[in-house]
Structure formats: C-alpha cells, structure tokens
C-alpha cells in the first residue's frame, strides 16, 4: 500500500514536470522581453502559432526537432510584429499584444483545420544515463523527453546571461531606465527587438511542446490559457528565472493532480477540476510573494513605456 502511494506520487511529480515545461519555456522568454521593458500579452497567440507550425512541419518532414525549430522561427516572426508596433511605432503594448493573441488564435485555427485528427511524430522519453538511476529525483526529472532537458538548461543559462553578462546588464538597464542606457551607447531599440523576438521564439517552442511532446497532435486552442497564466507567473516570479522554474512546476503539479482526480472520478464537476491549476497557482504565488509585492520590488521601472531619445 505504502509502495503504491509513493509510486503514485512519483508519477504525479513526473507528470508535473511535463505539464510545467511548456509554461517554463514561455515564461523564460517573457522574462527577457519584460526585463527589457516590453510587455507581451500575446503569449497565448504565440503559443498557438508555435504549436501549429511545429506540428505541421514535423508531420510533413517526419522530424520533431525540425518542428521545434519551425515553431521558434514562427513565434519569433510573429513577435516581430509586436516589436515593430510597440518599439518602432511606439503603439500601446497591451493593445498590440491582444491583437497578437487574436491573430494567433485565428491563424492557427485556419491552418490547423487540415491537421485535426492527425497524429504526428513527437519526442519520446529519453532516459539520461546515470542521472535517471538516482532514486526519486532521477525518476522525476531524468526520465523525460529531450525538450524537458532543453528547458532545464535554459534556466541557469538565462540566469547567467541576465545577471552575469554585459548583455544582461544592458537588458536590465534598458528595462529600468532606457534613457540611461541610451546615454551610455546601448541601443535601446536593438536590445528591445532582440528580447521581444527571442521571447516570441520561446513562446513558440512552449507551444510546440504541447503538440510534439505533451501530446503528438494538434487540437484547436490547445494552449488552453497557459499563455495567460504565464503572464501572472512572470510577475510572481519577480522576473527571476529560478523562481519561474518553481512556479511553472507548481502549475504543472496542480494540473497533473487535477487530471488524476478526473480519472478517479470524485463526482466533482470536471470544469471545477480544470480550474484548479489556475486558481491554485495564483493563490500560492500571491501568498509566497506577498512581501515583495507589497514593497513593489522587482518590476522593471520602464515596463510598458515606449522610449524616444529626443523626448523628455
């Protein structure tokens, strides 16, 4: 009985990592954009773009990695629209982001029609030698697919870039005080474009995880609100990749649990169960970051504010 329980818990945690991974990708990308001062509320649309282009390419070429690359490119290209309207044209970031969501939903729905009901190639489980043998931890973290491992690498890498390199210092400065960065010769435009496009590419990859690893098919609107929850996650994580890692798995854990509960059939309406990951994630994160939110710590000071050199 006890053994059964621990097997169950490990299974749920394993599923938590899988469910958290797409969000982790999106979250990391959005941290870059917001650290540079550009809010992108179009993540939901970008995930869908990534999911459909990733699925289409891997379905037609038979190669899942190619699908991921395609998703990154497509996500980056669509984010370029957002970069152009908000950085060059200096349009409102919220409006532009919402447009992106609508656009992404429509386009993915349209091109996805042909893919409905198809099953494509995907990422298989890949046990890492040695690491997978570690009791418990190995089972949870190292018996996953290649994309999960990629996301593992991304977290410390992002932290290192952000807090240890000149690029990261430039990104953070541009988001805090673009005029300061500009006066020292840092190109605010280039840094912001770079971050927004990279953020879009990551959102695309996050979407592709849904259609190439989490499942291996295309379902309309399959992002299911994950883009939106990521926006909240970025805030509660204090724009910090390490905390985003925990937050993403928190959501993943709630989702895994919810699916189990559905399977057991407790007589709770499924719609309530499906709400659970969202409500739980927000509630826990609000509690956990109450202190820093109250002191208004962390938000890049110039987030959402367009920059023009000659304006004061």
């Amino acid at each position: 009985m006890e053994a059964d329980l621990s097997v169950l818990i490990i299974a749920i945690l394993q599923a938590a990592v899988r469910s958290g991974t797409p969000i982790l990708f999106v979250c990391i990308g959005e941290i870059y954009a917001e650290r540079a001062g550009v809010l992108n509320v179009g993540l939901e649309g970008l995930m869908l773009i990534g999911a459909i282009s990733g699925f289409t390419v891997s379905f037609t070429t038979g190669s899942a990695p190619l699908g991921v690359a395609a998703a990154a490119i497509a996500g980056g290209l669509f984010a370029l629209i957002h970069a152009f309207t908000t950085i060059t044209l200096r349009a409102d970031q919220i409006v532009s982001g919402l447009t992106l969501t609508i656009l992404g939903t429509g386009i993915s729905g349209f091109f996805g029609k042909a893919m409905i009901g198809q099953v494509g190639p995907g990422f298989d489980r890949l046990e890492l030698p040695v690491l997978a043998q570690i009791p418990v931890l190995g089972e949870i973290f190292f018996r996953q697919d290649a994309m999960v491992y990629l996301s593992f690498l991304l977290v410390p890498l992002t932290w290192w870039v952000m807090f240890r390199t000149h690029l990261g210092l430039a990104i953070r400065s541009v988001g805090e005080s673009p005029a300061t960065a500009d006066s020292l010769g840092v190109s605010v435009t280039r840094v912001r474009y770079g971050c927004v496009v990279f953020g879009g590419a990551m959102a695309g990859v996050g979407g592709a995880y849904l259609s190439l690893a989490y499942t291996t098919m295309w379902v309309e609107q399959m992002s299911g609100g994950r883009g939106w929850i990521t926006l909240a996650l970025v805030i509660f994580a204090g724009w910090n990749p390490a905390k985003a890692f925990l937050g993403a798995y928190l959501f993943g854990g709630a989702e895994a649990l919810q699916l189990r509960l559905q399977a057991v059939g407790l007589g709770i309406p499924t719609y309530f169960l499906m709400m659970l990951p969202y409500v739980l994630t927000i509630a826990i994160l609000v509690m956990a970051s109450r202190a820093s939110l109250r002191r208004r710590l962390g938000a890049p000071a110039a987030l959402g504010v367009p920059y023009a050199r000659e304006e004061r």
Partner: protein
Amino acid sequence: MSDSRAAVSMRGVTKRFPGVIANDRVDLELLEGEIHTLLGENGAGKSTLMNVLTGIYLPDEGSISVAGKPVRFNSPKDAIALGIGMVHQHFKLVQSHTVTENIVLGLAGGFQPVRLSEAEGRVAELSERYGVKVDPGAHVWELSIGEQQRVEILKILFRGAKILLLDEPTAVLTPQEADELFVTLRSMREKGHSIVFISHKLDEVMAISDRITVLRGGKNVGTVQTSATSPRALSNLMVGREIQFQTYPRPEMKGESILEVKGVSAEGDRGLPALKDVSFEVASGEILGFAGVAGNGQEELAQVVTGLKAISSGSITVDGRPMAGASAKDFIDAGVSYVPADRHGVATVGDMSLTHNSVLRRYREEKFGQGPLLNLVAASKYADRLIEEFDIKTPGRETAVRTLSGGNLQKVILAREMTTRHRLLVVMSATHGLDVGATEFVRETLNHHREEGAAIVLISEDLEELLSLSDRIAVLFHGEIMGIVDAAQAEIETLGLMMAGERQSEAVA
C-alpha cells in the same frame, strides 16, 4: 600656444522643438584644459546645447568639430567614443543597480561576463585619484543626491573622457559638497580635461571658470574672460536688462500664531525615525527658515505639516485646530499650500498640459469646476495669467509640462501654489534651479505673502537665501532641531556648526 587649442568647437548649431527654437545658430568653443561656464536664464537652451554635444539631440543645422576634426553624432555612442561625457541635470542612473553596475554599463557587449570585482578595483582607484568618494557596491537608491552625482562623474572618468559637461551640478549640493566638487574640477583641469560647467549661481561661476558664454533665448550673446567681467555685467547680459538685487526691510509684523508643532516624531520611508521630538511655532506674517544638510528630516518635516505623512507622536495645530489624523485635503482646506522639492514625482503630472497642471489643486473650486465638469475656459485664462506673471517660457498653455526646461517646470509649481490664498505656505528648495531673475521674483512673492499675513515655512539648503528672507532660522540635524536663532543676529559659522550637529548653546559658546 598649445594650451589654447579648441577641444570642441560648435558652429551655427540650431535645434528646434515643436513651438520653440531651443538653440539658434549657437557658436561655442571649448579650449583644452579650461573650465567654461554656460550661463543663461531658465529655458535659454543650455541643456539642449549640451545634449547636442553628447549625441542625444540631433541638431537641425550647424557643425561640430572635436580636436579640430569635423564630426557628426548619430547617437550618444559616437560622442562617448570621442571622449565626451555628461552629468545630466536630471541624473541618468539605474536606481536599482549598484554603483559599479551603473559605471560598467555599455562598456562591453554580448555574452562577455561582467567582471564586477575588477571594475570595483578600478572605481576605487579613480575615486582615490580624483578625490571622488563613493561606495562601489552600494545601490544607487541608497545614495544621497551628492553621492549619486559622484557616480555620474566616475562614470565619465571611467570611460577616460577628456571633455566633461556638467549640467547644474551644484544645484543639488550643499555648500560643503559644492566645495568638494570644485576641488575635483580643478584637479581635472590640471590633468588636462576640458569642462563645461552650468550654474545659476554667479559667485560660483566667477570662482571656478576661465571663460563664460551667455545664452539668451537660444542665442549666444557673448563669450567673455571671467577676469574681465562681473556678476552684475553677467546678469545684465543674461536677462538683457538691469536686475535689482533687493534686500528686504523686515518690519516686525508677527501676528497670531498659525502653525503649532509640539513634540512631533515621525518615521521616514524606510521605517527609521526621521523626526524626533520636533517643536516650533510659526505666526502670521513670519517666515521661519529651516536650514540643514539634505536628508536630515527636511522632506519629512514638510510632509507632516502638509498632511502627507502621519506622525507617530506629538501634535500639530493649524489656526488652533488639531490636525491629528487629518488628510492632505483637510490641510488644503485649512489653507495650507506646499511647494515640494521633487518637481517630477510629486508636484506635476508630466503628460498633462500646463493648463491642467495649473488647476491640479484647485479643480474643486467653483471658479474652475461646475459639478463634475472642469471649466476649461476659466482654467485656460488662469494658465495664461500664470505664464504671463511668472514669465514661464513655453510654446503655449497646451504644452505637456514634461517638455519644459528644469527651471520653467519649477515656475509652474510655484505659480500654482503661490497664487492661491493661504494661511500657511510650506516651500522646499523654492529657488533651486531658477535663474537670477526668477529667483528674485520668487523671493519677492514670498515676501509679499508674508506681508499679506501668511505664515511661511521655508526649507532650503541655501544659507544666503534663508538669511535674507527669514525672520528666524531653525537648524535640523538627524531629525532634531538643534536650535532656532533670530535671522538678524545669526552668523553663518554658528549655523554651520549647528548643521554639523552642535546644539545652539554649544555652538554659540
């Protein structure tokens, strides 16, 4: 003569903004190894000209050459590459980063690691060499304004700049800090740097500069040797007319007591005690000056007597009415006005027009509002009147106030607060950043209100100003009042000792 080569020469520089010509065919020559002052009224175009020289503003016309070679700046990067660095009027620092992070920003790119400890070593070495002390590991928000300015200077020196542009560096400094800055500037001049210095304080200008260029209405109206001019000649050149420096005869006219503060303590923003057991009274027709080095509780004092900050103990009464727990609106209704020192954050809404900013505090009055509606006609007329009376340089009343020059923004606030009728007027750093003409005008206005029977709390770091305007002067140190002296008998030395923490009795003895 090798030492009179031009480090920078600007020819016919013109810069236009919507509705204003900020620089009108300006010529300026900065020689190697000189300290060159730019002088001019608020809005004369000093900051604009310097921003052109750092590549932040693209000039509409004109040419620039550096060390004899014609150059064209497309971005600040180009100016930095030629060794030009600027300390801006409003500092350009990332508040949440450390001193060293601010200094090394932009020095390298890509995935090169930031070598903070190495940089800290170099920062320490530079601070030593130029006598500019600051803790390299501190966060900028933790630093006083004076320290932040040193970070700006180090930032420039770190890049090996030979040409330094300092836009009103002393406006935010205490007299002691300003003296330290001058020592630094002189040592830089000795090491061959060329410096442009902007200030409204004529005595400083006379003391520090080799040559002086005066701007008026965006035009260069003359460059002179400091040794061949006088403050009077300079101010005439600046304003285009004779300025009367008045001394105010101060008839004793103290009336009934208006503001009474008894045993007040309060906490600062970081939760530390900022005011300790402060007691004083201000009567109708009296100006009580508050002296002190910035950061000794001045800000908090102004906030508690205007209802912007809660007190932790003691009592405050206005016209005998206890104001414990009263809101800022209650204070306004009791006839209290406030001119804060922070012009951007507290006093104005940058994106709103001059008209709207001028009625910000008064939109509830019948004259400007009809029920929920604003009476824009009345507001516009009022704004026009303020522009006229206070000589605010702006393209018009519909201009967003964030585009105004530093001094003109200050005038907008003063105009708004000073035309209201009040029982108590709390003024902080009133003439900070104002040109001589405007300073005179503000002083006159304050004196006028005094004669009308208002009680005035005047908080300033400028001892001269306090001595010439106040009836009595209180000195703040670490949130406590060191003593209150009669302005007529006060001596600068005594006040200086009290500002450094000696009680009145000790300082006099």
